């Protein structure tokens, strides 16, 4: 009994890493994704082509590969700036890889959302003397958010589970922790990790549903 409590405690502790990685990735990748989406819609074609190429590379290669390259790359390439040593470096570089990866996926969702807003909404704002930023923030943004909520929800849920990939650069996340017990012949901690993910995703699903209902007051 005592052993169970100890293991659950250590699993919970390691899940904090999954959670931190999840939260930081969301906080940084959403604004970065918005910036990337603007780049991919730019009328200045060199910028547009550059941004779309980056998105293609990031979406076209495994996140696991990106984690490895971002973590080991700077050191192996002899760059002057490298990641901090130890645990901090492993976590920061994992966060960087996740932010970049998710920002690219988000940017495409944002682009789709922004481009789906009827031209008439922009024109109505224009003839009423609004500036471009007023049109974006006061007219289109909320309509975009409403439209992209389901695909964004999908990405958010995928992100929860993807955080486990951080173990590839030795971040002690929950599945890695459970794996240590498995190698000692104990299988249940591995199953237990599934419960952590299920509960977390369950909470997120409720939150997303609530948001969707909140935005249900108008049709767009």
């Amino acid at each position, binding site marked *: 009994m005592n052993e169970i409590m100890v293991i659950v405690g250590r699993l919970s502790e390691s899940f904090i890493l999954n959670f931190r990685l999840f939260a930081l990735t969301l906080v940084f990748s959403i604004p970065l994704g918005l910036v990337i989406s603007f780049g991919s819609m730019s009328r200045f074609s060199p910028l547009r082509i550059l941004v779309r190429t980056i998105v293609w590379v990031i979406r076209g290669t495994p996140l696991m590969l990106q984690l490895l390259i971002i973590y080991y790359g700077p050191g192996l390439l002899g760059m002057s700036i490298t990641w901090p040593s130890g645990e901090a470096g492993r976590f920061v570089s994992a966060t960087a890889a996740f932010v970049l990866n998710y920002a690219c996926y988000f940017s495409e969702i944002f682009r789709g959302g922004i481009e789906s807003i009827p031209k*008439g*909404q922009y*024109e109505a704002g224009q003839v009423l*003397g609004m500036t471009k930023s007023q049109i974006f923030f*006061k007219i289109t943004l909320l*309509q975009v958010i*409403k439209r992209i909520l389901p695909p964004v929800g999908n990405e958010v849920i995928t992100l929860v589970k993807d955080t486990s990939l951080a173990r590839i650069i030795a971040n002690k996340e929950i599945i890695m922790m459970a794996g240590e017990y498995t190698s000692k012949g104990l299988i249940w901690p591995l199953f237990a990790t599934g419960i952590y993910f299920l509960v977390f995703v369950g909470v997120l699903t409720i939150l997303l549903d609530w948001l969707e209902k909140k935005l249900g007051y108008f*049709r767009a």
Partner: protein
Amino acid sequence: MAFLEVKNLQKYFDNFQVLKDINFSLDKGETIAIIGSSGSGKTTLLRCLNFLERPDKGSIIVDNKIIFDAMDPSTQKESEVRKKRLHFGLVFQNFNLFPQYTVLKNVTLAAELLAKEKANYKQDKKAILKEIEDRGKRLLDQVGLSDKLDHYPHMISGGQQQRVAIARALALEPDILCFDEPTSALDLELTGEVLKVIRSLAEGNTTMIIVTHEMDFAREVSDRVIFMDDGMVVEQGDPNEVFTSPKEERTKQFLYRYKQ
């Protein structure tokens, strides 16, 4: 000189010339109706007046001020254009109301945003916003929607939405109000209520340009009718004359087709 002068306006979409040398004028308080078949350039003309399209040649003069001259880039600065387009109001065929705002907010939003640019906005914020709201309510009352202030656009009919759009355009007190086929997206039974509002504006001497397919309405409401075909003003004049005894062959053909 007339209140609005449009001179030698030309517009190309790639190599296709949509507007071929458009000239007309409009006096204050006058209502003109622009008729013509689809693709004749009527909508493009309205969009040029509202700076939604940039004419390739020609000039637009309002109240003796050149607000657009294709030859003079200084009249086309983005920051200036934003203010200049306020000379004109535009009511769209598809209303284009903002779905996330109530009927009242749709009417007041633009005025609220513009008020922020006023020097005394910070001190007099409350009074300014109150005034804007009161005006919004007054306008909605004028179009017969004072009982729908808190409704969202999807909760009201197309005819009601278009009346909100008219109130919204009026809220910024444009010198010239433009209508781009305001009833074309409406069922026949809802057309009447919108036309009634426009009619009352004409009686109140609002300066208006109305692009429409409603021939009877055009004839009744306008002080002058312009018939456009193939990017040109083919004929213009008193509505009764144009409709009963058109001079140009193309006008005759168009009106004949319409009667059938």
